[in-house]
């Protein structure tokens, strides 16, 4: 078969007309352009374009980084379940999990590149690496894992009919598939470390009693809690984005038993995580913080935002509640409850990352100082929304041109009624 004769869209599946697709991409590209404009402003004029200040060295962007990396955790944990534990059923969703992971991690790297005061010196983190710094560990693992995600994504790109028609690319794709388990295992190993070291970033701050945690050897408890929560909530985000994709395309793309399996595993991970998180919070509130002269309510009063509600929202409403829904068969088999649970889990992990960055900065350290509140500038907001537009574009392109969902044809005979 000649390469030129091969179709661009995978055969046997239905896709929307080009004009409709172009309009959809155009809308997302407009939002993306807004973010790019903000990036240019920040790179050109400096971080004075943000509302960060000396009290808020870390702010919205670091939260966004932590949140997207946690939500992108679906890639490594689904990879772990598929290739290492041997849950073959999950092969139906691993492609999509990898794409979501790729989007999340590339977004995180982009945000980091905006967030540093001297972007051209970004490579110093590798060249002058301080092995004692959790951020060094984050930078190394994050970069290498992003490379792994790219390697995991490439064979799928090569599955495009037009590319597959070229013998070299076809064989490359085949050979990469053969050794993918090795990369998946590498990705899992790296992810356990960088998800953990992101938790360590806050947990090692012994000058910040709201963040500081004891731990084992060099690793504070937050190291383990961050990995655990990413493994629990990352797959929830994968389920959520799959559901959104199904709603937008008006098609069933992943078999329900696959979703159910992922939801069940996620539920047990979330339940065990939230029990560990509760224990950590209790020990911190009753032992660690008082040893530094702080009572629990010192961190949740005398300010306009951070009340005890945020702790209850994170642990009870967005922790125990979704965990109990997901571990119960009746709960996760009810479509509405399932979606409620995954949305709550995603909100819960985002709240956790928020408080471990923003509330740490806000809380006063001296009895004569007040809480410092912060609202991001439009440039910070635009660059934080950018990954959503970027993600929509990548997913749309992948869905249109690549065989992302192996059961799509089976679930939608004769192309189905969707787009």
């Amino acid at each position, binding site marked *: 078969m000649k390469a030129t004769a091969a179709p661009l869209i995978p055969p046997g599946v239905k896709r929307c007309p080009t004009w409709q697709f172009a309009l959809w991409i155009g809308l997302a590209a407009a939002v993306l352009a807004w973010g790019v404009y903000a990036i240019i402003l920040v790179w050109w004029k400096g971080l004075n374009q943000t509302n960060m200040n000396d009290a808020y060295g870390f702010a919205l962007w670091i939260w966004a980084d932590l949140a997207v990396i946690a939500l992108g955790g679906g890639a490594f944990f689904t990879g772990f379940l598929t290739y290492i534990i041997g849950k073959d059923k999950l092969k139906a969703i691993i492609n999509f999990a990898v794409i979501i992971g790729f989007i999340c991690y590339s977004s995180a790297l982009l945000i980091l590149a905006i967030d540093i*005061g001297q972007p051209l010196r970004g490579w*110093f983190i590798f060249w002058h690496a301080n092995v004692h710094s959790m951020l060094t560990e984050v930078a190394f693992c994050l970069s290498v894992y992003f490379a792994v995600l790219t390697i995991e994504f490439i064979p799928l790109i090569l599955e495009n009919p037009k590319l597959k028609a070229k013998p070299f690319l076809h064989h490359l794709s085949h050979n990469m598939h053969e050794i993918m388990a090795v990369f998946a295992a590498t990705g899992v190993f790296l992810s356990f470390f960088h998800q953990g070291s992101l938790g360590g970033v806050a947990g090692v701050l012994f000058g910040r009693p709201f963040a500081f945690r004891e731990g084992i050897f060099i690793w504070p408890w937050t190291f383990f809690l961050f990995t655990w929560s990413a493994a629990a909530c990352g797959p929830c985000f994968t389920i959520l984005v799959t559901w959104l994709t199904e709603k937008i395309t008006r098609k069933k793309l992943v078999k329900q038993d696959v979703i159910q399996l992922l939801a069940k595993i996620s539920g047990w991970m979330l339940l065990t995580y939230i029990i560990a998180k509760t224990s950590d919070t209790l020990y911190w509130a009753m032992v660690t913080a008082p040893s530094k002269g702080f009572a629990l309510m010192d961190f949740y009063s005398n300010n306009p935002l951070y009340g005890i509600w945020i702790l209850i929202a994170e642990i009870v409403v967005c922790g125990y509640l979704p965990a109990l829904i997901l571990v119960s068969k009746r709960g996760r088999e009810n479509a509405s409850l399932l979606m409620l649970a995954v949305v709550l889990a995603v909100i819960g992990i985002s709240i956790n990352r928020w408080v471990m960055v923003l509330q*740490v900065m806000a809380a006063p350290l001296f009895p004569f100082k007040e809480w410092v509140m912060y609202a991001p500038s439009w440039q910070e907001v635009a660059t934080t929304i950018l990954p959503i537009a970027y993600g929509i574009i990548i997913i749309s392109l992948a869905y249109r041109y690549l065989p992302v969902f192996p059961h799509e044809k089976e679930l939608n005979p004769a192309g189905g009624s969707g787009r």
Partner: protein
Amino acid sequence: MTQANATKYGMVIDLDKCTGCGACMVACYAENNVPFKKDESDKLDSINWIRVFKVSNRKPWPDTEICYLPMPCMHCGGIGDHGHSPCVSVCPATATDYDHGTGIVSQIYTRCFGCRYCMAACPYHARKFNWWDPVWPGDMEQYLSPNVSARMRGVVEKCSFCFHRYQLAKDRAYHEGRHQEPLGENEYQTACVEACPAGAMTFGDLNNPKHAVYNLKKSPHAFRLLERLQTNPKVYYISSREWVRRSGDNYLAHEEAGSIKRATANHH
């Protein structure tokens, strides 16, 4: 040289003497080429290597009392004084370092890439970020000190205990053939200490019995800021007023101000 008898520069600030005049801040700006904004009303993004805080006992008149508290970088030694200060241990690019020969925490401006992790780590807010390019009005650029490099936009800076003065004093001692001997107390003094008109600030080697700070830090009224965080600062404060000492750290309602310090001393 062991850790215990190594030179360890530090400061003692007598808060009963400080009038809050701000001469220390002005001297520091001039000495260290510290940049400033056209409008300095928003202190959250002002750069200052030493800042004088106004602390109140929060009692209504006539019992109101005020204390002025100058706060430079504490040059923390960290737990056990091993040099693992909150900021040094977190900097991913080794752009800040603990000098075991002087106990001074340095900042390498040309290596800092502006991640601001050190600022998140420092409980004293001693570290300031250059949110803007430094701009010197009029011909002020001609008056910058040649001994201190000006910093660029996008990097963190902080008090260095006027380290360039230490280097100049060491150079002089070397030329005079005294490089094996420790520097005399008056050979190396920081700009803020020299400028203090009230004599509230004293600087020297905390480990050298010939230096005034050696004995001053042993005052029963001496304390350090946020000692409970185990940052191990090298700046000591003295105040005869109990409420001032209590303001320097956090205490639970039932704890009395000196209790933690005494417990730590007994432990050692």
